[in-house]
């Protein structure tokens, strides 16, 4: 049973990291980008390519994976978000980010291949280490560091405060002289870097697989919706709960019920507490 909990925590950490990336982008743009999971896919695929194929040292491979994730995050903002938000208040970003995500996935599939490929071992450790294996603990450790880092960033830095101001009220922030467009661009860059880093850390768990993106986009969103949109603590709790529940459901009821139960969780939370476990209730003053 301990194996079920640890593996559930590990994959839950990846879902939580995806939810965090959603939050970073959402805070400045109010967009839930479909490319979120693809940032992770790029982190794992490019990490495997840099280290496994090109033979780069691990730290350089890590930086490369973060850079690729950040670049794709930035590209998302430029191509699929900026122009759409400038021209329409409708939720057309759903289509534009889906299109970019699909193009990104297809391009990686054509170049990298459609079969999963190995991700290199990052720390010297025997494969028979059981539950102490790095493939479980790297994503778990990383997501905690990421959540803490984001909190410190939001609370302790000027850029973080700009994020918060833009998130609270973009029009008011702009009226106060904040370049909200630049803040939004930076948030996508940051989310991309975060996704690239988390994808890299989880590479041994997920393999370097071109189709990983859409799965993480979906499960990251469920984690976010359960935890509460905009809350980093909610992202952590939602991701962990989803990972554990999927793992436990699979253990007790079999793999065929894994996704049913995960989506069932989303529905229950949305029915009982539509704002999520830690989401703020939005009251519109009239």
């Amino acid at each position, binding site marked *: 049973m301990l*194996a079920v909990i640890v593996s559930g925590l590990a994959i839950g950490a990846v879902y939580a990291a995806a939810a965090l990336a959603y939050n970073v982008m959402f805070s400045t743009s109010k967009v839930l980008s479909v490319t979120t999971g693809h940032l992770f896919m790029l982190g794992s695929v490019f990490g495997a390519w840099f280290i496994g194929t090109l033979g780069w040292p691990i730290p350089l491979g890590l930086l490369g994976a973060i850079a690729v994730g950040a670049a794709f995050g930035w590209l998302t903002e430029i191509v699929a978000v900026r122009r759409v938000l400038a021209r329409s208040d409708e939720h057309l970003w759903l289509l534009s980010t889906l299109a970019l995500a699909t193009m990104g996935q297809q391009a990686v*599939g054509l170049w990298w291949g459609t079969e*999963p490929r190995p991700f290199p071992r990052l720390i010297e450790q025997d494969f*028979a280490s059981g539950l102490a294996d790095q493939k479980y603990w790297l994503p778990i450790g990383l997501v905690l560091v990421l959540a803490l880092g984001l909190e410190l960033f939001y609370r302790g830095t000027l850029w973080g405060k700009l994020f918060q101001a833009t998130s609270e009220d973009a029009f008011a922030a702009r009226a106060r002289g904040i370049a909200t467009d630049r803040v939004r661009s930076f948030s996508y860059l940051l989310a991309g870097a975060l996704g690239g880093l988390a994808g890299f850390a989880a590479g041994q768990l997920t393999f370097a697989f071109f189709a990983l993106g859409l799965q993480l986009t979906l499960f990251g969103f469920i984690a976010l919706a359960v935890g509460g949109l905009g809350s980093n603590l909610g992202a952590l709790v939602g991701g962990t709960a989803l990972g554990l529940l999927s793992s436990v459901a699979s*253990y007790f009821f079999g*793999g*065929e019920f*894994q996704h049913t139960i995960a989506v069932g969780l989303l529905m229950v939370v949305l029915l009982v507490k539509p704002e999520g476990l830690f989401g703020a209730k939005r009251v519109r003053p009239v």
Partner: protein
Amino acid sequence: MTSLSLPRAVSAALFSVLLGGTSFAQEPIKIGWLSSLTGPLSSAAIAENQGVQFAVDEINKAGGINGRKIELLTRDTAGEPTKAVNLAQQLVFSDKVHVVIGPVNSGESLATVPILAKAGIPNIVIGALEGLIDEKKFPYAFRAINTNTQWIAGANNYALDVLKKKKVAVIGDTSGYGTASAKTATELLEKAGIKPVYSVLIDPNKTDVSDEMNKAKTAGADVVMPWTAATGLMARILNTRGNMGWDVPVVGHPAVMALPIKALLNKPEYWENTFAAGYQSTTYVDGKLPERTQKLVDALKPALGGKIDFTFWWVALGYDCVKIIEHVVKTTGGLEPAKFKATLEATKDFPGIYASYTWTPQDHNGFPDRNIVVNSANSFKDGSYDKAPH
């Protein structure tokens, strides 16, 4: 109005008949080839395409079939059933092909076989799922590949009769194919008087299978039989077995010996004691391949840069599909659907490279049981394998 003299009229008539006859004789044979060259499961399609293309080039270089060149119309379905349907319709109604090979995956074939049957176009089926062949509903569909049941029966026989194992753990994945295969495997085992000690379906993208493998071990399994075409899941099963230090034999789907698995294994030795249903045609006996296979390997190898790094039976199957069509044209002079059907239904032991095919009016599955053998997964060499120890 001018009139022709009798000799000139006769000459003109003869000339036009001859010309007409010549143009008929030279009308190309149009083969539609629905191949998932990109997208998931593209590796099988790419290899099959090598065989199809090679056979077409070989026949055309030799002057065609009865003087008629083959025109190959390859369409990339990207592994998507909806795309496969659109392309099948395009091949039939717009390109006016005489016969269609494929699609490669059973999921796509489930969508296209009824369409081709309705259009009355002969179809060489290369999906392994049982339901793709129905002599009444799809009278022009003939299968060249083995059925899924033949793979499963071959692996079951090896586990029970050769390895003498009785406590079987059956693992399937949650895809339609994995679920149906695991069900068939269990039914066949039960027919042989064996009730699996553990059965489970796993999501093909599940990142950890420790609990399933631990449960199988706790249940006392002495052989693990995975039925999934998902490379990632298969590699995780082998890695978990290796990491647990559990030396239980794994006997199952051919995906377990596909080359991409090798790179995903934590250690090369994790591939030992692993076996899968394979083919007589691509099995080394005393270090040698069957003569027909070796001939094709030798012919193709230079074009592939001197080494074959994919499973060769796909190539052999692709090659055979075109040779089956050649057999029909040579026998009947054309590809008229009724004659196509009659010719193949009367074909017995047609010597292909992948297999020797026999079809009857009652059975459009051409692949014989005897051509299935079990291979050692880690014995890959030039696309073929060693026979599993007996």
